[in-house]
């Protein structure tokens, strides 16, 4: 219900002719997709990745690099970005998924840092400064994602699609195996199933989805820089997921919405907004055990 209301608001805002709020909606949708993709790992598979920003950054850089080669079409940029992210996801996942628990958290961080330092070291792409997008991504028909209204609606559509895909995925046999592996890996193995290929596939899907969000982000800020894949961003993604409540699909989207709103509000009120953000984070973990989604759903049921 609330989600429908939220979506309705999100759909109306771009019509008001207020680019700032339109961009805010686009931003929320973009981070919603990113948080949702991370939730597939964290919530459903129990894989706490601390390096998800790497895939976001891959999306950002693809959206920045392809126009340099004269490619602007969304139907080239998005598949390429998702493919590159999925490939890096496969490569890093092959190793990361051998580890578990704390090792997994930090090995994913390591793989993200490697990508970060590569981006930072590429002087032809501005190194640590990054670079301005030479041209925006174009939709079929020529509409440009540099237009905030177009971007907002495109990202909202992508978000709805992502939610639908995630729902289908979680209900599928594939999804059930992943959840079963999270809850009781031993039993799954006793049934003769190895969770490894399932997790790897899921890892690749989540990576690709996050790259989609990255393409949107690059168009939102018309800029690509290594900062978009720093470990702090990975931490923020985790924050969004858990703020909303993991393993609920819509929870992380809510988390992203609140996070973006919170950041805007706090930094408008005080230059020490990071202090209060930190406090909110701690309070969320210590007191609000079910996340915003649990809160809104009422009681203990998900």
């Amino acid at each position, binding site marked *: 219900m609330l989600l429908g209301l939220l979506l309705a608001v999100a759909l109306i805002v771009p019509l008001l002719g207020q680019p700032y709020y339109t961009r805010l909606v686009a931003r929320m949708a973009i981070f919603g997709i990113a948080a949702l993709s991370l939730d597939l790992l964290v919530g459903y598979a129990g894989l706490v990745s601390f390096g998800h920003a790497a895939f976001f950054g891959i999306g950002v850089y693809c959206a920045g690099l392809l126009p340099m080669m004269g490619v602007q079409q969304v139907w080239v940029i998005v598949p390429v970005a998702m493919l590159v992210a999925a490939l890096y996801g496969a490569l890093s996942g092959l190793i990361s998924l051998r580890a578990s628990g704390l090792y997994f958290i930090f090995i994913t961080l390591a793989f993200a840092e490697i990508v970060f330092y590569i981006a930072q070291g590429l*002087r032809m792409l501005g190194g640590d400064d990054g670079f301005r997008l030479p041209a925006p991504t174009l939709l079929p028909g020529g509409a440009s994602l540099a237009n905030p209204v177009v971007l907002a609606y495109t990202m909202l559509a992508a978000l709805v699609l992502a939610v639908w895909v995630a729902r289908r995925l979680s209900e599928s046999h594939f999804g059930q195996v992943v959840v079963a592996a999270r809850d009781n890996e031993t039993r799954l193995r006793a049934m003769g199933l190895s969770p490894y290929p399932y997790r790897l596939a899921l890892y690749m899907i989540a990576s690709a989805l996050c790259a989609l969000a990255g393409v949107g982000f690059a168009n939102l800020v018309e800029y690509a820089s290594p900062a978009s894949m720093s470990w702090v961003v990975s931490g923020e993604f985790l924050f969004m997921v858990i703020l909303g409540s993991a393993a609920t699909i819509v929870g992380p989207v809510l988390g992203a919405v609140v996070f973006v709103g919170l950041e805007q509000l706090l930094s408008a009120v005080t230059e020490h907004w990071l202090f209060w953000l930190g406090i909110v984070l701690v309070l969320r973990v210590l007191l609000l055990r079910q996340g*915003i989604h649990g809160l809104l759903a009422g009681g203990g049921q998900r």
Partner: protein
Amino acid sequence: MHPMVRRSAFAMRVATVPAACPARSAIKASVAAAFTAILVVSTALGVAGTARAQAPASIRLGFIAAMSGPLSVVGAEQKRGFDLALDHLGGKLGGIPFEVIQGDSKANPTATVQELSRLIDKDRVDIITGLSTSNELVAAIKPISDARLFFIGMNGGPAVLAGEQCSPWYFNASFQNGQLTAGMGAYMAKAGVKKLYLMGMDYEAGHEHTEAAKKGFTGEVVAHAFTPIPQVDFAADIARIRASGADGVFAFYPGAPGIAFVRQWNQAGLNGKIALFSNIALSEPTVFQAQGKTALGIVVSANYFAGIDNPRNRRFVQDFRAKFGRDPASYAGLAYDSMMLIDAAVREVKGNIRDQTAFRAALRHANFESVRGPFRFNANQQPIQNTYVTQVDQRPDGSLWLRQLSVAAENAPDEFASRCSMK
């Protein structure tokens, strides 16, 4: 058995929560209320948009700088200079009442773009000033130009924005990066340096600043090295400097790495053995506290420092010291200047800043008294100004200051002006 097996960590995420005791649930309810409020407000903001009346009788000035994050030292110092300018202007800009809308660029290009969108689209500012780093500038000039607003830059100037990507909407009231070091090459040669070791942080500005230091140096450059951005331990580099046989080093390290470099240089016992040169980024009043006596003797070039002798600067420095207890850093001086520039231009068009052709012309005139001495704009709207050579010295009370040694470049433009299409 390891603890981890005991507590199945991930399964807990979706487990239901045990019934809460009354006190806890009260807390929970209030936290819940707060979160819901935030949720509602943050989304409702979108609907409660602003329908602000057009052109009030006051100017809306956007001031954006790195107020949080690792480079907020720069933003905070800019704010000090900015605030002092507000005091001196007595609440009016060119005789017109004005209101300041502040933004936080966080020293991050993407955050800058986002914050600019707020200033431009939501708060509908008329003029924008500020920014703290070169990468913020590169990201910011396009959205500002697209919005057809004038921007007066308070700190830094990457080469591309002085050359190929110059914009009629961008006035740089600080310096083109190379200008901070203009004439230092010749100065170092004259000071007797035969073998020069150049080094800097490995990012665009680091390359620009060290490149500029090389110009005009007649001796041998034994190395031109770059260290990775996160590096704060320079033991290895200092060892290499010593092994290179250099008798002079030019090192570009702003902020935290600069503090670390100077301290370690001192601890390695190189003070007084090898001459250390830089520009104002390495050693200036915001890092004097941290560098302490280890900074003594370092020679830095600058387009502004507190000791410049003119009536405007004497007043600025005196009031700054009275308010903040130390000399202003160049970030503060250049922020102050930017405000005085805007003030003069608004006065010249009698407040009619909507006439953008006239306002641009007025900004170009730069008819104000700069704290740095002579100042005017080149065709690319970058400054033509002096570069001074100063040395870190000590007052009788132990505090550090920059003593002028000479003028390295007089009324000098930047080197990229010819690449700019504006005439």
